[in-house]
């Protein structure tokens, strides 16, 4: 049950600073969309406004419309926790809950949202860990702390935790930037498997990664420091990386700036 994301002139602020200006784009269900661009261009901010995580920071706010299958998640009567349950998120650094075991980490979202039945939780745990390609590695030590795993395993644990609540969209904010190449490969393989079930949006600094995993790519940039980030070009990944229509995109992906 993947869903379509439509952003209609989404503008996000940190206090009085405008971080992204009027982003409009449509992200199709069951696809992988990569957001690339130089540091500070607002791609993470845009990602965080898709599941209303932007407003967690003090004084941060979002203008514009963000439609998930036609429903604006910034409407006044929307339950924020329901939005976040529907739209999972994986962060740059693995952040397993340090006081919880591997098992408790995976089912944290379910348990803290009121699911109590043990067989159901056990099933969900195994299913999520299998989807995250981690089950075989940790099945014998589910009661050990999540912090004891390697960095790559921790990140897959966080992916398992995110998909255990059965979201329809998965947002990934540079999920491999703290990982070595082998763990990165494991996560990329995982992304291509997950796209059969989820709409995936991934922010990455690694353009080879964007080219490898994504179907569509959005290029963000800023005119200069202090200016808000804009969506410069948004097209099929093959087009962006072989024959971009805008000069700035070409300059960026060929490494001439940024």
């Amino acid at each position: 049950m993947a869903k379509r994301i439509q952003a209609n002139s989404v503008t996000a602020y940190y206090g009085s600073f405008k971080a992204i200006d009027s982003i409009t784009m449509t992200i199709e269900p069951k696809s992988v969309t990569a957001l690339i661009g130089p540091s500070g261009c607002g791609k993470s901010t845009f990602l965080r406004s898709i599941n209303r995580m932007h407003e967690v920071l003090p004084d941060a706010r979002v203008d514009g419309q963000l439609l998930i299958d036609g429903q604006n998640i910034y409407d006044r009567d929307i339950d924020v926790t329901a939005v976040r349950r529907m739209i999972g998120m994986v962060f740059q650094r693995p952040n397993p809950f340090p006081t919880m075991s591997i098992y408790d980490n995976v089912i944290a979202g379910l348990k803290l949202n009121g699911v109590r039945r043990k067989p159901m939780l056990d099933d969900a745990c195994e299913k999520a860990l299998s989807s995250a390609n981690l089950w075989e590695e940790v099945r014998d030590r589910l009661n050990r702390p999540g912090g004891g795993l390697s960095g790559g395993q921790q990140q897959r644990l966080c992916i398992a935790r995110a998909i255990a609540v059965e979201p329809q969209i998965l947002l990934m904010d540079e999920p491999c930037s703290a990982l070595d190449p082998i763990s990165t490969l494991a996560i990329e393989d995982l992304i291509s498997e997950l796209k059969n079930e989820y709409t995936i949006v991934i922010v990455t600094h690694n353009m080879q990664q964007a080219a490898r995993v994504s179907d569509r790519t959005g290029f963000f940039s800023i005119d200069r420091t202090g200016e808000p980030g804009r969506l410069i070009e948004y097209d099929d990944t093959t087009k962006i990386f072989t024959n971009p229509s805008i000069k700035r995109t070409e300059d960026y992906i060929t490494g001439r700036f940024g």
Partner: protein
Amino acid sequence: MSDRTSLGPPSLADNRLTRRRIITDRLATTLVYGAFLLALAPLLSVAWTLLSKGIERLDGNFLYTSMNNIAAFDDRGGAYHAIIGTLEQAGIATIITVPLGVLGAIYIVEYGRGWFASAIRFFVDVMTGIPSIVAGLFVLAFWVLVVTPVFNDGRPGFSGFAAALALSVLMLPTVVRSTEEMLRLVPAALREGAYALGVPKWLTITRVVIPTALPGIVTGVMLAIARACGETAPVLLVAGGNPAINFDPFSGNQSSLSLYVFEQAGVASPYAPARAWAAALTLVTLVLTLTIAAKLLARRNTLTR
């Protein structure tokens, strides 16, 4: 420019430089160890004096009898009533302080924005500096002499509970500040991780943030309890002291271990000093045991790596 004549990296075997560094290193090491030993000396001295002088009267008779009807030339007498007093007063003070203090810290860290939170933090800081005698006087003037007489036919209500109130005033800022520091140490990434799962804020705080900060919070609470157990002046002012056993903290005078030490140190009796030392040793042992027990409990709740 340096006075080296040749280019390239300095020779690896520059003897003068190496010697100077070795000497500096030795000097610094000696200073650090010296400072450590200097700081350790009074601690060891206190511990030794306490043990050697306190062990003499620390027996079953001391732990299980009170000072009721003990005359100046009676070599017996004990601190049972004072142990009861300390446990009850510190216990009640803890029951009052921990929920208030932890909730206050949660408000400051997780919810408080703007001037109100800053005002609370400022007044907590001010409270940290309140001398214990002032806390005692506050409870004496407010609770013992004004509130309790209303329910007590006009007689002032000295009690262990009044002492517990005074101790709460002293413990509260310590608990708030230490809990606040510990909550701030919990990485924002953990909170965001929970929010991103659709977990409401209050559940994030109670199930993710507090458990992560728990060992530190327990340490802060134990420090506050240890301080409260050692306070003499407020207990003297509002519980009044009592040579007999009084189990009821809500009515009648009560003693406490620190007050007992104070009294015995000043009593004209050849047997009093030994009793004072024994009570001091009891107090230290009690606080130490509580601290170790609380730390073990807190550690059992977090997973071992």
